[in-house]
């Protein structure tokens, strides 16, 4: 399957079809529920791509990608309440703040690798969860720190003027997600991508090639955090109010890496599949299949199973392959 998706001639065509479908067909045929769902799929695809990129391309097992995701969401939302800056600028600021924090996370993480890096980053996800809870994340009062106690006073977060409705915001999200994927692709296809491939395979060999390992790992952390941060901002605009911190919890952190691995971390398509699994398939099952909520729990078990299978496969074959390579 992966081979088909990696076929060079296939790729631009597939992207064009997917984007055209998302921009022109999907808003016309799906109702509000599924449009919201698909918006979140676009957002989650970016987060999955950022986590998958760190693991699959650079070899850094980070379970903390929900942290920049949450930080981007929080920063964008607070700035939306407190300022009148244009929405794309808010996304950019959210992404940049997340990138700076991503680098700060990366610095101590460079001292450890493998399982220990996974532990450190998981603790980080837990710390962010706690911090967001204490800060009454993100709430909807005015100003930078505004907090309202009555739920009925929660103001919805604003959206860009040209994307006020759900279908328009969905299109906006798809375009931003596409830009972020192109950004990731530009890095992967260039000098950083080759340096990362080298680091992932063998650090001594990368050093022998003159690669400044620390610098390139930090670039990876910064890029991944930027992507997740912008995605967090998009997510804030999609949900608009009363966002639960469960999106950025430890469980969400584990869930993220599980679906990212299942989708496949060596191709950006894997991230799209991971997002489909976690945002659309689940709702398809609970909405249309007999059993309703059962599927919710079942799919969690399924992803857990998928993760285990993946890890068993990966120890066998060195290459950690998901469904789409």
């Amino acid at each position, binding site marked *: 399957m992966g081979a088909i998706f990696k076929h060079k001639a296939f790729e631009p065509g597939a992207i064009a079809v997917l984007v055209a479908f998302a921009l022109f067909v999907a808003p016309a045929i799906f109702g509000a529920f599924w449009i919201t769902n698909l918006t979140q799929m676009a957002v989650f695809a970016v987060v999955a791509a950022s986590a998958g990129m760190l693991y699959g391309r650079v070899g850094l097992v980070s379970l903390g990608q929900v942290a920049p995701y949450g930080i981007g969401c929080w920063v964008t939302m607070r700035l939306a309440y407190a300022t009148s800056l244009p929405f794309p600028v808010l996304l950019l600021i959210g992404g940049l703040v997340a990138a700076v924090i991503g680098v700060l996370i990366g610095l101590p993480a460079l001292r450890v690798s493998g399982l220990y890096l996974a532990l450190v980053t998981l603790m980080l996800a837990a710390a962010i969860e706690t911090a967001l809870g204490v800060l009454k994340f993100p709430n909807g009062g005015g100003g930078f720190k505004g907090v309202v106690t009555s739920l009925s006073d929660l103001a919805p977060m604003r959206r860009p003027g040209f994307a006020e409705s759900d279908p328009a915001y969905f299109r906006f999200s798809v375009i931003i997600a596409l830009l972020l994927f192109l950004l990731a692709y530009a890095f992967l296809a260039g000098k950083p991508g080759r340096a990362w491939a*080298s680091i992932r395979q063998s650090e001594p060999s990368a050093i*022998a*090639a*003159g*690669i400044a390992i620390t610098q390139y790992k930090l670039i990876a952390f910064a890029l991944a955090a930027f992507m997740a941060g912008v995605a967090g901002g998009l997510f804030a605009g999609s949900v608009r109010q009363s966002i639960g911190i469960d999106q950025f919890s430890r469980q969400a952190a584990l869930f993220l890496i599980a679906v990212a691995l299942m989708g496949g971390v060596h191709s950006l398509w894997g991230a799209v599949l991971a997002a489909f699994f976690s945002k659309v398939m689940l709702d398809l099952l609970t909405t249309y299949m007999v059993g309703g909520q059962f599927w919710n729990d079942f799919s969690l078990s399924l992803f857990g199973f998928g993760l285990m299978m993946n890890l068993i496969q990966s120890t066998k074959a060195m290459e950690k392959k998901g469904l789409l390579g």
Partner: protein
Amino acid sequence: MKVEVSDVRVQFGGVMPLDGVTVTFPGGTCGLIGPNGAGKTTFFNVLSGYVTPVSGSVLCDGVELLSMPDYKRARWGVRRTFQTEQAIEGLTVFDNVLTVYEHTAKASRAKKKAVVEEALEFCGLSAVGQQLVRTLPAKERRFIEVARAVVGEPKMVLLDEPAAGLPEEETNELSAIIRAIPERSDATVILVDHDMALVQACCEWSAVLDFGRLLASGPTGDVLRDPKVLSAYLGEDELL
């Protein structure tokens, strides 16, 4: 270019893999031989910066190599191959060689392409330039290692058992490439290998390590007939 190594000592706990090695490599292609565990790979690791010696100095062209961080040595001109293949599986042959060049030199896009293609041609890899490394057989992978070590303007090329596991015919091909390195780029080549025929074919000069010490050095033919060297190789009558 002369490589002057003086009094290099490496200690791992109670073990001294290099116990005060002093030797001057005169330039050209030099052999570095010795029985298993003699300290050859540790010596390479000192030169490339993976192992920090407790004392000693390595002077090349008046530059103290040991005071440079590891990746900067590669940028200065130290290149090496490893006993196990290290070519990057997921990249094409061209990108593999390009990775080394783009991190060790600044050049325009066109120059990068020309330099990398020249290195591929030098190692007989032009035909497979656009193939992924993981699809290639052992011989090509070995030769990619050499191409990565010679691309651009290396000053010192360290080859750690480049012919291990290759059949004789391919070893001969490799031998021709190794012999051509010094005149191509004016680099000092240091070759570690257990194949004495290869060492003698490539190197006019050789040094012998045993138990972390320099046992002998000089013209390769003389060194290989030295009784001290023969007895270090468990009393073999002759090494060729």
